[in-house]
């Protein structure tokens, strides 16, 4: 099951040139980019692992692409995303986030039932084994 989180996730995977162009746009806006990865893409897992430090004051996408490729090489079977953070006063939040690497086989999620008080059933998303 294809994971649909972040921007562009309903599109076919972006090529490297397209990724570079998106990063270029982020840098033009003055956003700081960072690379993150995870093996647990649960929608409630907001904080993925950071791959290196966020990158400030970059002028060209080549630097970010290097980091993206290094992360892909280290974690070929993880999800990898690029974040762009806008530090403008009053915004101070993520402006753009998109997935740049997916595992070969995406396992997706399963339905988990939990029995509560009074035989009530709670449903939630769980990782599929």
């Amino acid at each position, binding site marked *: 099951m294809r994971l649909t989180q972040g921007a562009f996730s309903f599109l076919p995977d972006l090529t490297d040139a397209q990724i570079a162009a998106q990063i270029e746009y982020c840098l033009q806006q003055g956003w700081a980019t960072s690379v993150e990865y995870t093996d647990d893409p649960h929608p409630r897992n907001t904080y993925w692992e950071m791959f*290196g*430090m966020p*990158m400030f*004051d*970059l*002028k*060209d*996408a*080549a*630097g*970010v692409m*290097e*980091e993206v490729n290094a992360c892909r090489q280290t974690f070929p079977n993880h999800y990898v995303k690029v974040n762009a953070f806008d530090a403008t006063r009053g915004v101070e939040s993520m402006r753009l986030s998109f997935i740049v690497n997916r595992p070969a086989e995406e396992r997706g999620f399963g339905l988990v039932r939990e029995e509560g008080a009074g035989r009530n059933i709670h449903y939630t998303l769980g990782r599929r084994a």
Partner: protein
Amino acid sequence: MNAATELSLETAFAESQIGQVLDKLDAELVGLEPVKSRIRDICAFLLVDKLRSQLQLTTGAPSLHMSFTGNPGTGKTTVALRMAEILHRLGYVRKGHLVAVTRDDLVGQYIGHTAPKTREVLKRAMGGVLFIDEAYYLYRPENERDYGQEVIEILLQQMENHRDDLVVVLAGYKDRMEQFFRSNPGMSSRIAHHIDFPNYTSGELLAIGHLMLKQMQYTLSREAEAALREYVELRRTQPNFSNARSIRNALDRARLRQATRLLAQRAKSLSARELMTLEAQDIRASRVFTQVARGRAS
């Protein structure tokens, strides 16, 4: 075919607007003839190379890493800035910004700190020019555990792998840079252009002084001009002379003295002319003159 190529060289030259940058280089930088002619050579080569690639002739991706050697104040940083602009116009670097760093910005403080720090700087410089001032400090043979060696290794690797993304310019004093290259032959062979910046002559220094004053919107009285000429001659013979930078400092101090002089006679109303003019006494009050007098006396 012949006419077509001639035409395209003309248009390529016009399109890149490289003529403007070179003219600006001529106008803003006094002297430095060997440097300018070398830059013109590089420009011409890159332009021709670009055309060759358009005609699908073989072009080896030119190595653009450079080393600028010369005494302090001979304009290495300024030329590096222009070089970034020129390479940007010619399309060899994408952004054309200059990131100027020294040893402190590259070398870490503990084991494992150097590589990320250096990589961060390299990433910032991508798409532009990385200017490493006093690059010989990176290599300290007297301390074999110095982290500078690690920086050099990463630099070498990135200079090879990111030829399209990054141009590295190493700068420093001539003799120490030569020693640096002797001890790091890998670095020397990866740098295609070794450019030496000569010292300025007195006449050139004077011209630089005038150019600076023009930019700061000051003028010299006739006596002040003679004083400045004398000052340049004297200052050259004294220790710690750093070419154009010494002239800039001298002029800055003259401006201070002028301000004090004007403040002392504040009862009088001032004209714009007086505000702009440096008098001979502003320059003659310099330590440079008194030191010589003392030297003669003793």
